[in-house]
């Protein structure tokens, strides 16, 4: 699938310092992204920012190792499944609220999902679920856009994401 004659010129692989630092940094960036996603409800941050930070770790990987090597690790199909999953979580939680309350509650009224016994706690958990969904979608969409922009392939479908 990866084309050898990319004109990005980054396929050569950089210096050993850059590669090693990238190897070290990527897990920490991803950990930070997860922190941002989970703490979105109570502080600055949230699904969108966390997703972007997560995606930026892939961008860093591409910069350090070149598009060809990164592209081999990047699965288009898995990405598509991921960003659909995110939307399913987000919209699905909303629809579950209607279902669980037999049509009494509104769309996205998280309090009615019987996760715990407290209405407010349900609401907080529902919000976290939605943040996770958004985070997954944004991560996949930004990665996908970046790969499609940087990588010349036979057919590039332009695709944009809104969460």
């Amino acid at each position, binding site marked *: 699938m990866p084309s050898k004659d990319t004109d990005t010129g980054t396929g050569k692989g950089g210096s050993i310092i850059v590669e090693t630092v990238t190897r070290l940094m990527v897990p920490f960036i991803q950990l930070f992204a997860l922190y941002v996603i989970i703490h979105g409800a109570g502080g*600055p941050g949230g699904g969108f920012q966390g997703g972007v930070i997560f995606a930026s770790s892939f961008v860093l990987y591409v910069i350090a190792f070149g598009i060809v090597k990164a592209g081999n690790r990047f699965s288009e199909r898995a990405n598509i499944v991921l960003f659909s999953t995110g939307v399913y979580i987000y919209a699905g939680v909303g629809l579950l609220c209607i279902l669980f309350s037999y049509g009494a509650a509104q769309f996205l009224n998280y309090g009615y999902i019987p996760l715990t016994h407290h209405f407010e706690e349900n609401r907080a958990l529902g919000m976290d679920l939605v943040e996770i969904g958004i985070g997954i979608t944004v991560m996949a969409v930004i990665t996908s856009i970046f790969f499609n922009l940087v990588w010349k392939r036979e057919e*590039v479908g*332009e695709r*944009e994401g*809104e969460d």
Partner: protein
Amino acid sequence: MIDWLIEELFAKYNYWISIVLMLIGFYAMIAKDNLIKKIIGLNIFQTAIFLFYISLGDITGGTEPIVSEEMIAQGYVYVNPLPHVLILTAIVVGVATTAVALALVILMYEEYGTIEESEIIELERESAGRSDTR
């Protein structure tokens, strides 16, 4: 006169700067020939509007809108968080627009071999002229 200056120009300086940035972005979008420059202008234009919104929510002597009950009881004044939420959404929209625009620019470069708008119009006119004569 001095009072007016202080009142209208100096005290509301972030609104003025937001307008200046808006005009810079607008100029780049309208007048620049290069398509990437147009997109940079678009980003500046959007950011200027965000600056306007954030200035609306800000108050002198306020704190971040992350406060606990005790802090409010102690008399902390926090800035209006609603514009922040709106701007988060607007930033999402902005980056999506940029991505679509860049995809279009890349495809146009592959089609015409240039990213200058005037050259593209020229090439288009030539091909249209050829189709008329057939």
